[in-house]
């Protein structure tokens, strides 16, 4: 019997069977977690911390190659090469921290170890969004209501039209600009990505209704700014003051170089995180859903919706780690609390399962996924672009 309104040719019973098969995969992997997985996350954390602190000191090291020192190697090309290496390493360290470590720890993927140091409810991450706020808007809202219009804030993040089902309005004409701006300021964007703030912009609540929330975000933003744009640059500048009596170079410029280097590292992380994350639900072929479709949703149907709404990116092992294994977005959405190093091994099983049930499994190269995301963004800035909300609903209820 078919009473559901999902765009697949399966009966209700078949969808439940599909769900049970996924559940079996989940239980099998969860039962086999052990020393190997613990060793993996400990190694990633250690590598990340070593890399971050080394990168900071390589940035400092580059300051000793400013031409004003006058020694044989003191030249801008040498200085910039070392600085570039430091910035690159810091960027990678921040990517690893945000994506492969914190995102997954905050999903409670490592809570099973019961290690008091690696727990979702105590972990804080290297970004402006306070981790507990993010856990709410991400784990609860986005992962429960994935791709459901009017429920999932991540459908266009309140500023973009990512599916023709969203009604067009003139403000969307600017969305290619928002696209670029959000890419560059992704960290800040995530920090203010809150239902309360979204409602406020629509005039649904007063500022004082959520002042405590703003204070919490404000404290986190301050500590992030204090680290990257005050503490590390200031320490360098303070050392540069006495040196400036012998080496003609302004301590202010030293401050600027270190602050600038940190800013570029943050920018690298922003662009990379944005690219990977936008490939998760917005490439061509990803489905969106109406509230009506998901009413009274069973676990089997929830699994189906996660699979239809998520997209994978293909790549090598290092690529998967640097993307926080969000390149396995489908597996991540099916099993959000499975430890990330296991996604790679369950992906072929999930793919084969999808194939058996004739369910689309959206997996392609980064070029294809990001390319179609970007083209979609351009197209949907203008009216039309596909079947709008209303007709689809009627069509679904007729079948």
């Amino acid at each position, binding site marked *: 019997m078919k009473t559901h309104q999902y765009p697949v040719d399966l009966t209700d019973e078949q969808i439940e069977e599909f769900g049970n098969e996924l559940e079996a995969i989940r239980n099998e992997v969860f039962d086999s977690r*052990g020393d190997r997985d613990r060793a993996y996350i400990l190694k990633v954390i250690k590598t990340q911390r070593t890399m971050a602190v080394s990168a900071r000191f390589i940035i400092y090291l580059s300051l000793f190659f400013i031409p004003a020192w006058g020694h044989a190697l003191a030249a801008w090309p040498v200085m910039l090469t070392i600085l570039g290496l430091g910035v690159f390493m810091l960027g990678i360290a921040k990517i690893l921290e945000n994506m492969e470590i914190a995102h997954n720890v905050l999903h*409670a993927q490592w809570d*099973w170890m019961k290690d008091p*140091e690696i727990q979702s409810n105590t972990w*804080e991450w290297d970004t402006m969004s306070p981790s507990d706020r993010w856990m709410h808007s991400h784990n609860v809202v986005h*992962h429960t209501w994935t791709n459901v219009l009017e429920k999932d804030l991540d459908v266009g993040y309140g500023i973009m039209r990512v599916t023709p089902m969203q009604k067009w309005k003139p403000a969307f004409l600017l969305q290619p600009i928002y696209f670029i701006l959000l890419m560059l300021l992704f960290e800040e964007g995530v920090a203010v990505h809150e239902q309360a703030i979204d409602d406020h912009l629509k005039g649904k609540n007063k500022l004082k209704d959520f002042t405590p929330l703003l204070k919490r975000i404000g404290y986190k933003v301050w500590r992030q700014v204090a680290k990257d744009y005050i503490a590390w640059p200031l320490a360098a500048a303070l050392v540069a003051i006495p040196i400036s009596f012998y080496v003609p170079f302004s301590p202010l410029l030293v401050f600027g170089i270190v602050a600038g280097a940190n800013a570029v590292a943050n920018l690298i992380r922003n662009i990379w995180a944005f690219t990977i994350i936008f490939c998760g639900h917005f490439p061509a072929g990803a489905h969106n859903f109406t509230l009506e479709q998901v009413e009274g949703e069973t676990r089997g149907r929830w699994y189906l919706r996660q699979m239809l709404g998520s997209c994978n990116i293909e790549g090598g092992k290092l690529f998967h780690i640097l993307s926080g294994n969000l390149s396995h977005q489908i597996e991540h959405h099916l099993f959000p*609390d499975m430890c990330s190093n296991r996604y790679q091994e369950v992906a072929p099983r999930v793919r084969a399962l999808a194939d058996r049930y004739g369910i689309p499994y959206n997996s392609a190269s980064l070029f294809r996924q990001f390319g179609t995301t970007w083209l979609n963004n351009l197209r949907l800035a203008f009216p039309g672009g596909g079947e709008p909300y209303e007709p689809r609903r009627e069509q679904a209820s007729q079948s």
Partner: protein
Amino acid sequence: MRQPAQPEPGASPSIWSRLSTITDYFAWPLRTSHYLELVNPLWTTHKLQARVVKVWDETKDARTLTLRPGLNWRGHRAGQHVRVGIPANGKHYTRTYTISSPPEREDDCFTITVKAIDKGTISHHIVRNIKVGDYLPIGLPQGDFYLPDAQPIQPLFITAGSGITPAFSMVNSLIAQGRLPDTHHIHYAPHEFDVVLGKELKAMDRYNDRYHLHLIYSREGDDPSRNRFSAAQLDALCPDWKERDVYACGPPSLLEAIEQCMEDAGCIRRLHVERFRAPFTEVPADAVGGRVRFAQSDVETDGDSDTPLLKAAEEAGMNPPHGCRMGICHTCNTTLVSGCVRDLRTGEVLNEAGSIVQTCICAAAGDCELDL
């Protein structure tokens, strides 16, 4: 990790903590200590760790680990115990062990002596798998089972099996301080070569006139039942036991017998007992739900074996934190205070106090208490 630790009220912050307040601005959202850990795990302040510097087999199933604690360690009193974090099969377990070395030890290390007990996965893991060079998270010394500092007492130690450890630490401490009073020690072990720390005990007996050791091999002789603890045995080995302060550590059956004996003799006040309570609850074979207690809210209700604890709490008029209601977001995570719950998805039973429970997909399996 979220907020920097507050110094204890009344204590003025040390130079190190003042300095680390500044350096923490560089390390945010971590602490300076997380980066010091990369250089030497013993320098951390966000957690205390110890390095395993020596392992030594006491008997075929008991092993002594010598541990070098991190900088934040404070000395113990002889007889106290310490919590030790053990990673086994990827999971972190916490167990409590008595420190078997005296505080007077000169190399700043301490020892724990662990006996692999039947069905004890973790004790087996410690005895067989922990190697020299491993780092183990530890707690600070705790417990009130120690000798008074100044009171002149004459102790009688009654110990069995690995319950020897606090007594061993206490006697050694008194010897090291040169103030060992007249001491009797009755120790029970199955056979001669099963005595944990047996060689050391015999050496102590030989070189200290005031230390009187009575080793009883409970599974030897024609009639092993005669070797069990009894008032008559006590009279024979230590006639003045009623005038002594008794320090006892061993299995529950022995402790009960001693308590009964001291009660009958009217000198229960002189008895000091150390118990090791297992952190596990027996899983009821017919686990069909039970009484559910929410400790913080002081609410008690009935929970059957299929109703998620979250729903039970809501039906009892509470509004605990929750999110997806399907076990994926972990907003509802809480701690198991005692008792036993079952994960409705996998059927896995959680019965270790301190386990994290997702209330939206766990149901009662017998009586349980949650930190909600």
